[in-house]
């Protein structure tokens, strides 16, 4: 793709739409991954590079070609609905709380749905490395644990066995951290055997994990270790977690890995997501020694509807170098979060309609195609060697203009069905 500064469009070779079947990573061994200080490799869990995380001799069980785009987008929608549900519920609870100050909010259920990027970290002493779903939209880290007293799904790595670790300890159900875990999971904890803290977390797609809240040594890399890391040791885990061993929660609650490593890393982390399902990204904890001059910062906002989420102020959108006529209040009334686990960006309906109209106008020389699930702006690009698509920029508070990379503008099912990778919320208040 080409798109020099000042140009209003990207020129993309349609051959780049085809998914790669081999991993283009330069990192080839698990040892390499585990030795990179404070920096973890990120791969797409349905992509060719997820085989990186298999031990020698193991066969890859899922390939990118088995991935069903409609199913994938359906799960993305479930996640978004769960996020909306949770935020609305929190908002309703806050209003109820102000009326009845003594009543604690009860937040049953839904947190999120399927997230699709995985990283590899180690648990226990000696460290056992395993692949976890990486997610800024949730807080609790959990892994499947032996003896899997109720149910463990099939995972790539060996299931963690606490009895083989010298640093494992349980958490009492009368402790503050046990009590507070409900704000990270949405479900009140309970007391189990020997007064152990029992957590439960259920996601928007009905997937869930239930088990003991425990402390254990977490190895981010072989040389970068967090002692007494609090996480869930799952005894009953069911749902759409693929072959991952669990989930790494990067939200803002005090149980998240970001909060638990606040002293060590200063609450700073960054990531580069893989731009294709067959390439690698990285997740880095701690401040960078030197920030690139091209970095653009926008304020991170706290919102009482969802204190775990990373809110920011989206104030406008431009297409093909022209700012769309959307009132800033359209974005302000609902708010915006940034989430590593949602695939397709959701916009207030008014903003989406304006984006769709400008995009269609720019793409008017291409044939339309039928919608794909939540994506309703699709084109049939059969017969084209190259296509021109308009540049799209997101404008954030503080004068930050973010040109979305061409790889982030389209969702491609096939050359006959190439869709604008944005979707609308039901209404502007969502």
């Amino acid at each position, binding site marked *: 793709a080409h798109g020099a500064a000042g140009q209003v469009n990207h020129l993309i070779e349609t051959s780049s739409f085809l998914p790669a079947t081999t991993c283009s990573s330069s990192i080839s061994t698990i040892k390499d991954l585990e030795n990179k200080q404070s920096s973890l490799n990120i791969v797409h869990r349905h992509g060719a590079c997820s085989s990186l995380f298999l031990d020698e001799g193991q066969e890859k069980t899922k390939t990118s070609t088995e991935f069903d785009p409609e199913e994938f987008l359906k799960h993305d929608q479930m996640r*978004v609905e769960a*996020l909306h549900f949770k*935020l609305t519920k929190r908002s309703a609870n806050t209003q109820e709380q102000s009326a009845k100050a003594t009543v604690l909010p009860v937040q049953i259920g839904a947190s999120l749905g399927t997230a*699709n990027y995985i990283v590899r970290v180690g648990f226990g002493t000696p460290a056992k490395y395993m692949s976890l779903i990486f997610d*800024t939209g949730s807080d609790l880290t959990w892994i499947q644990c032996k003896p899997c007293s109720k149910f463990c799904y099939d995972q790539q790595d060996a299931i963690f066995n606490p009895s083989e670790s010298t640093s494992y300890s349980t958490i009492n159900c009368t402790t503050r951290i046990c009590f507070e875990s409900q704000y990270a999971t949405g479900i009140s904890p309970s007391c189990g055997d020997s007064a152990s803290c029992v957590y439960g977390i259920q996601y928007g797609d009905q997937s869930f994990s239930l088990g003991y809240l425990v402390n254990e040594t977490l190895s981010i890399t072989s040389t970068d270790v967090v002692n007494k890391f609090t996480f869930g040791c799952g005894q009953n885990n069911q749902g759409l977690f693929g072959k991952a061993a669990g989930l790494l929660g*990067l939200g803002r609650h005090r149980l998240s890995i*970001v*909060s638990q490593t*606040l002293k060590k890393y200063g*609450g*700073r*982390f*960054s990531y*580069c*997501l*893989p*731009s294709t399902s067959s390439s690698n990204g990285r997740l880095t904890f701690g401040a960078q020694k030197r*920030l*690139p001059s*091209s*970095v*653009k*910062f*926008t*304020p*991170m*906002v706290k919102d009482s*509807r*969802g204190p775990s989420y*990373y809110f*920011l102020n*989206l104030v406008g959108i431009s297409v093909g170098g022209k700012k769309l006529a959307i009132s800033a209040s359209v974005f302000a009334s*609902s*708010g*915006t*979060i*940034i*989430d*590593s*686990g*949602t*695939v*397709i*960006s*959701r*916009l*207030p309906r008014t*903003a989406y309609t304006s984006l769709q109209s400008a995009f269609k106008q720019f793409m008017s020389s291409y044939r339309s195609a039928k919608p794909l699930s939540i994506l309703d702006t699709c084109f049939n690009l059969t017969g084209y060697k190259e296509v021109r698509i308009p540049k799209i920029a*997101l404008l954030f508070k503080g004068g*930050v203009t*973010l040109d*979305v*990379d061409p*790889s*982030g*503008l389209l*969702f491609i099912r096939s050359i006959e069905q190439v869709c604008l*990778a944005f979707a609308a*919320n039901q209404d502007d208040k*969502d």
Partner: protein
Amino acid sequence: VGIIGNTQQQRMEVIYDVAKSKLGFVPGSCA
């Protein structure tokens, strides 16, 4: 709530600084 999804975050480094309450973007730094 509007959501910036991960498709739109590709090929740019996203920096979270909770202590200073700011989010940073570095376009083109993830090639």
